[in-house]
């Protein structure tokens, strides 16, 4: 019954308009495939993501949330990395309080040409989520 196996976790990606979005677009251009249940919401800067949005995504049924962060390339300044890290920590705390495994929220800096890195991260995250959340379906 391999046809019924769940191969794709549902992942919400927060990407940024100027930095990680071009990389995700280029992944498509290069036909670097990743699961089709990965959806992107674009925002200006990764340090502007509210932990409440992340929690809402889990409450609505997303298996994982991935922050394609600006990292040191952020056009709004070098404090972005630290601030994005802080909001991820805050979200992790709120997830723990609600019994949501913190590892279901991942962050990686994805530069505007990091298409392969993005796809690699998403595939690995997908595998992790399938193993941990959908093991009984395998």
């Amino acid at each position: 019954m391999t046809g019924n196996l769940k191969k794709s976790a549902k992942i919400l990606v927060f990407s940024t308009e100027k930095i990680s979005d071009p990389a995700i677009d280029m992944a498509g251009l290069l036909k670097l495939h990743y699961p089709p249940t990965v959806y992107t919401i674009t925002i200006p800067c990764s340090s502007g993501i509210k932990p409440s949005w992340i929690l809402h995504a889990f409450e609505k049924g997303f298996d994982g949330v991935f922050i394609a962060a600006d990292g040191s390339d952020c056009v709004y300044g070098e404090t972005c990395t630290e601030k994005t890290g802080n909001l991820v920590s805050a979200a992790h705390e709120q997830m723990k309080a609600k019994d949501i495994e913190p590892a279901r929220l991942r962050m990686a800096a994805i530069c505007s040409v990091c298409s392969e890195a993005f796809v690699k991260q998403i595939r690995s995250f997908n595998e992790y989520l399938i193993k941990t959340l959908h093991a009984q379906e395998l």
Partner: protein
Amino acid sequence: MKRLGVYICHCGGNISDYVDVEEVRKAVEHEEGVVLAKTTMFACSDSNQNDMVSDIKKHKLDGVVVASCSPKLHLVTFRNVTERGDLNKYTYVHANIREQASWAHSDDKQGATGKAIHLVKAAIAKSRYAEPLYPNQIEAEKTIAVIGAGIAGLKAAASISDKNINVILIEKENRVGGHAAELGDLFMSDEKGYDLVNRVYNDIVQRENVTILTGSEVISSKGSIGDFTLKIRKRPQNAGDPVETMEIKVGSMVVATGFESYIPKEGEFDYVVNENVIALPEFKLLVDKSTGDRLIYKGKTIKNIVYIYCVGSRQNEGGNTYCSRFCCTSVIHTSIEAKKKFKNIYNIHLNRGIRTYGKQELLYAESLKMGDIYLQFDQTTPPEITSNGKNSIVTVTDILSEGKKMSVEADLIVLVTGMVPRSDQSVGTMLKIPKGRDKFYNEVHIKLRPVETVIDGITIAGACQGPKNISESVNSALSAATKSFSYVSKGTLETEPIIAVINEDSCSWCGKCLEACPFDAIEKRNVNSREIAVVNSSVCKGCGMCAPVCPPDAINLIGYRNEEIISMIDVLA
């Protein structure tokens, strides 16, 4: 309730080959507020744009969603369409179902269609909250940097200078001109390459609004369109001189860092191991620099010259799969020059199909008329080089003579090599310019935005973008110069009206937003006897860093308010 129009693009077949666009249309046509849902072959075509303007007026639409390619390509196009329909352009919402659905999931049509439906529904959800906004104006530095002073960079600098804008031309080497300065006779010109470079250089070097920095490298870049700060390191010109570093401010940049010639591997068609084998750039130099009535190479008079085409180009997957475009013309031109300049030259061209496009076909005709021999081989049976003890023998299977094997004694074997991207990609890496599958820098769209990159304010010119001959490089340089000029020509730039807004009722000043703001755009004010945070809209850059740190969640970013993001998450879940 808002009245929304939704357009789903086939993009020829780029989308509809993998996404069932009709299924997408049916899935969204009854969404709340949607009064019109259409599929269209090319959403960006003039006819569809006109239809959209008519639809907006006829159906009294308040918002428009187009599901098509990346917003990097057509967001502005469709914003302008909504404006022509008398709507505020910021009520337009874009859904990217090409790069992020059809292409990303071309291996899974059902999955791609399902994802496209979700993405369009999310865009509709966002559209319900989209409000009229008005762009901000920022100052733009009226100086343009051109990085690379090959022929493309020189011509771009000249063109920008013509438009009365300051240009800073930065060249890593100690001389300008790049590869063009190494060339002798050019086709379709009476000039030699180095004469052409000298002419352009002598023209711009005298101009007051052009600064030329040779021996200089850009080592860092900060800022964004209209306000880039580049740090430049200038190598010492004389022994004992200190390394000089300087900072310059520019509004936009043209990147024209050029190419490298493909260098065959040792043993590839006997390169290096056989002294009678040379690559095209070496042959061009030999023909240009040789004098007398005989062509002499390593003390030997050259008569029979065999040219092996497509060395390092049109290779199998994993190699350089692209055609380098210029090399057929270049080698035929040089072979004709050799024949005209020296006695008893016999040219034998072993090719994989001649690609002397456009006027360059005249050269091919001339070469045939002069008696040059053309034999065509297949990629699977490349020519073989052996030796008879005295000379090299090249054997080829000519597919135009029913696969007949032919051998020719060669005094000189020229490997017709193409262009490859520069091995030093530091400029592209620093500026984050995307590369294509061929590893050259990538434009946004080869036809619609051929010199723009996804990095606002940075254009590309010449062969750093892909193989080009001199005239093609110059054309792209003029285009890039004009585009870069257009960014800064007014001295001001329109920026997105995305700023933070504070709910005064919820805010009870704690100062965390001020700490988070990198631009000091937030100040404490006393309003109605209460201390609250107020955003200075002329300073706010719209990063949103203040929003997540606000304990009572009183801060939202326009265009990314809680209700918009939450409604999108609800639809995507």
